[in-house]
C-alpha cells in the first residue's frame, strides 16, 4: 500500500484547515465522537455551523486566535492509498512550520482566496514548493461561494498567477488549478453543483490519480551509515554490520562499494533486514549491510558503488537556503551543518543572492538573510560532505544549519 504525503500552503485565512477538515469529513474519516467534539467547540465559539478547521487547529492558542500556528499531521485512507496530510500555518511568522510540513510532501495544495487573488504568501509558498521540488502543486482557488461561483473570477486569478507560476516552476513539476469552496464542499470530493462550468477533477480525484513515479531507486546509490552493529556475543563474535536507511538507488549483494570520505573499497557480503537476508535493497529501506572484509567505517560515512566515477564530495560549494530563525543569517558566521545524519562545521563565506518572492528577481551580494527569506549562499565545511546536487538527487542534496549556541535548526539548504 503506498503513501501519498500532502502539505497545505497559502496565506493566513485562505481556508487550508477548513479544506482538510472538509476532505476528511466527506471521506467519512472522522469518527462520531470527534464530530461531536467539533460541534461543541463550534458552538462554544458562537458559530451556527460546523467549523471543520477545528479538526486540525487543536491547540488552545490556535482556537483562541482562530489561526494555525504549528503543523498538524492528519491521516486518512482510501482503497487506493494512505494519505498523510500536513496542515501548515499561513501566517508569515510561522513559515518554519510551513517548511517543516512541506519538506516531505509530494503534493502541495496552495490555497488562494477567490476575493483577494495572489498575495505575498502565495508567491512565497510557490517559491518554497519549487525550492523543495515538490512534484505536484494544486492551486485551489477557495471561497468561490463568496464570488458567486463566477467562472470569470477563477479565470482571472488563473491568468494573473500564470506569469508567477511560469517563473517558479521547474521541468517535471505539474501545476493545476481548481475552483473550490471548502466551507460548502464544492469540488472537494463531489463535483461542484454550483460550478457546472468546471469539468475537471475534484480535489480527491486529483489526489487519487496522481502517479508519482518513484525515481529514487534509479538514482545513484547512496547509503549513509547510521550505526555500527557489533553484538560481541558468542554467536556473532566478529560480526560488524552497518545499519542505515538507503537514501537513493539500489544495492545488491556482491556489489563493489566505496566508503566516503575514506575512499576504501570492499564488496557487499550480505544485506539484512532483521532475520531476513535479501539479495538487494532500494531507496527508503532500513537495512544492515555487511562487507567481505574489515575496513574502518563509522557513523556519518557514506557507502556508494565503487563503479561510480562521479564521487559526491563537497567542501566549498554554493546552495540555496531558506532561513528559519529570528536571528539573521550573516556572512562570515559559522554553523553546524547536518547533511542527512552527518554533522560538520560550516562557514558561510558569502550571501550571493536574496530572492524577491513576488517579483522572482534577486538582489546580489547582500549582508544577511532574515527570517523567512530565501537566498543563495557560498559555504565551506570543515569535513567534506557526500552530497549530490539537490535537483539531481533530492534525497541526498539537502542539509540543515544548526545554531551552535541555541542548538536550534535555523535554516535549510539545497545544494546547487
Amino acid at each position, binding site marked *: 500500500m503506498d*503513501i501519498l504525503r500532502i502539505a497545505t500552503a497559502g496565506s493566513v485565512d485562505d481556508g487550508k484547515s477548513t479544506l482538510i477538515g472538509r476532505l476528511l469529513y466527506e471521506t467519512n474519516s472522522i469518527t462520531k465522537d470527534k464530530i461531536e467534539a467539533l460541534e461543541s467547540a463550534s458552538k462554544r465559539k458562537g458559530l451556527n455551523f460546523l467549523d471543520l478547521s477545528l479538526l486540525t487547529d487543536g491547540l488552545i492558542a490556535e482556537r483562541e486566535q482562530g489561526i494555525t500556528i504549528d*503543523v*498538524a499531521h492528519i491521516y486518512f485512507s482510501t482503497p487506493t492509498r494512505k494519505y498523510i496530510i500536513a496542515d501548515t500555518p499561513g501566517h508569515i511568522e510561522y513559515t518554519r512550520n510551513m517548511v517543516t510540513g512541506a519538506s516531505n510532501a509530494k503534493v502541495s495544495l496552495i490555497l488562494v482566496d477567490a476575493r483577494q487573488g495572489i498575495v505575498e504568501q502565495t508567491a512565497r509558498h510557490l517559491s518554497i514548493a519549487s525550492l523543495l521540488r515538490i512534484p505536484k502543486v494544486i492551486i485551489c482557488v477557495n471561497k468561490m461561494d463568496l464570488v458567486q461561483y463566477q467562472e470569470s473570477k477563477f479565470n482571472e486569478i488563473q491568468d494573473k498567477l500564470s506569469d508567477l507560476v511560469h517563473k517558479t516552476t521547474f521541468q517535471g513539476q505539474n501545476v493545476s488549478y481548481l475552483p473550490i469552496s471548502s466551507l460548502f464542499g464544492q469540488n472537494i470530493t463531489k463535483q461542484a453543483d454550483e460550478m457546472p462550468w468546471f469539468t475537471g477533477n475534484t480535489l480527491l480525484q486529483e489526489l487519487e490519480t496522481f502517479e508519482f513515479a518513484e525515481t529514487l531507486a534509479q538514482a545513484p546509490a547512496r547509503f549513509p551509515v547510521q550505526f555500527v552493529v557489533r553484538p560481541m556475543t558468542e554467536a556473532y563474535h566478529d560480526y560488524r554490520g552497518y545499519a542505515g536507511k538507503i537514501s537513493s538507488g539500489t544495492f545488491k549483494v556482491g556489489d563493489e562499494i566505496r566508503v566516503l570520505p575514506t575512499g576504501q573499497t570492499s564488496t557487499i557480503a550480505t544485506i539484512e533486514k532483521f*532475520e531476513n537476508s535479501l539479495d538487494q535493497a532500494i531507496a527508503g529501506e532500513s537495512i544492515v549491510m555487511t562487507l567481505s572484509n574489515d575496513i574502518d567505517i563509522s557513523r556519518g560515512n557514506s557507502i556508494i558503488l565503487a563503479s561510480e566515477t562521479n564521487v559526491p564530495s563537497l567542501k566549498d560549494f554554493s546552495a540555496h537556503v531558506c532561513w528559519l530563525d529570528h536571528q539573521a543569517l550573516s556572512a562570515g558566521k559559522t554553523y553546524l551543518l547536518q547533511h542527512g545524519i552527518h554533522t560538520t562545521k560550516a562557514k558561510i563565506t558569502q550571501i550571493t543572492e536574496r530572492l524577491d518572492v513576488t517579483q522572482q528577481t534577486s538582489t546580489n551580494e547582500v549582508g544577511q538573510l532574515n527570517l523567512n527569506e530565501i537566498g543563495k549562499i557560498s559555504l565551506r565545511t570543515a569535513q567534506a560532505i557526500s552530497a549530490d546536487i539537490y535537483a539531481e538527487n533530492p534525497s541526498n542534496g539537502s542539509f540543515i544549519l544548526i545554531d551552535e549556541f541555541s*542548538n*536550534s*535548526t535555523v535554516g535549510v539548504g539545497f545544494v546547487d
Partner: protein
Amino acid sequence: MSTNMSAIHDKIGQFPRELEDESIYIMREVAAQFDRPALLFSGGKDSITLVRLAQKAFFPGKIPFPLVHIDTGHNFPETIEFRDWLVKETGAELIVRYVQDSIDQGKAKEESGKYASRNVLQTVTLLDTIEEFKFDACIGGARRDEEKARAKERIFSVRDDFGQWDAKRQRPELFDMLNGRISVGENVRVFPISNWTELDVWNYIKEEKMEIPSIYFAHQRQVIQRDGMLWADSEHLNKEADEIPFETTVRFRTVGDMTCTAAVSSTAVDINVIIEEILSAEISERGARIDDKRSEAAMEKRKQQGYF
C-alpha cells in the same frame, strides 16, 4: 459478504512497510545521537510495537537502551505479566519506578472522588526517573492520529528542565533530518511511530504475528456502567452506591490504567475481527480514554506539564 463489509475489507489493505523503515531509522538515530536514551514502556500495544522496532533496528545486537516502566500501581495484572515475559524474551533491561513512591515521598498527591486516577501523577514519577538516570532521550509510543495536541508533535520533541512542551517554540524538522542537540538540563521525547495510525499498528501486529496482552481480546470481566462507558471493576475504582458491577464480555482497545481506560463490548477473539471492529467503529480510540475527557485541552495541558 455485504457491500458494506467488502468496502471495509478494501480499506484494511496492508501495513505500509515504509512506515517501519522510517521508525527503525528513528530508533537508530536515538541510539547514535544520545548518551542515555530510554524507551518508555507502558505495556500497551504502541509501546510493544516500539520494542519490536527497537529489536529489529539493532539485530543481531541487543536493544541498546533500557525499557522504563512508570508503574502507577493501577495496572491490569495482565499487562505486568506480559511486560515481564517480553523482557525475558528480548533480553532487554527493565527499570521500574513507582508512583506509589512519589506519593509516599509527598511529591504527588492521590486524587479523590469517583474519577480519581493516577494518570496525571505519573508525570511526577517520570520526571524524577529522568533525573535519577540522567536520561537525555525518552522514546514514547504516542501517535499523531490519537489526539489533536499530539497531531502537533515533532518526532524529536525538545523539553525543558521541567519536561515541559512548548508548542510555540518547536524546532523545524526537515525531511528526515533529526536534530537531537540539546543544552544541559533539556531532554528529548522521541516518537518513532508518529505517522502510524491505530489501524497501521494493528495491521503490523497481525503481519508480524506479535504477542500482545490478553486483555486486548474479548474476555469475561466485572464492569460497571458509567457515563455511557464500561469501566473495569477493581479495588482502585471509587464506586458510588448505585454503581453495581456485573459480568460481561469485553475487550480493551487501548490500555492505560484500570482507572482511565474504558472497555468496549466485544466478542472478538481474533485479530482480524478486531481490525474489522476498528474499521467500523463510530468512536475513535481515545474516545475510550477517560483521561482525555476531563476538558477540551486535557492532553495539551498534560503535555505542558511533562506528560508524553
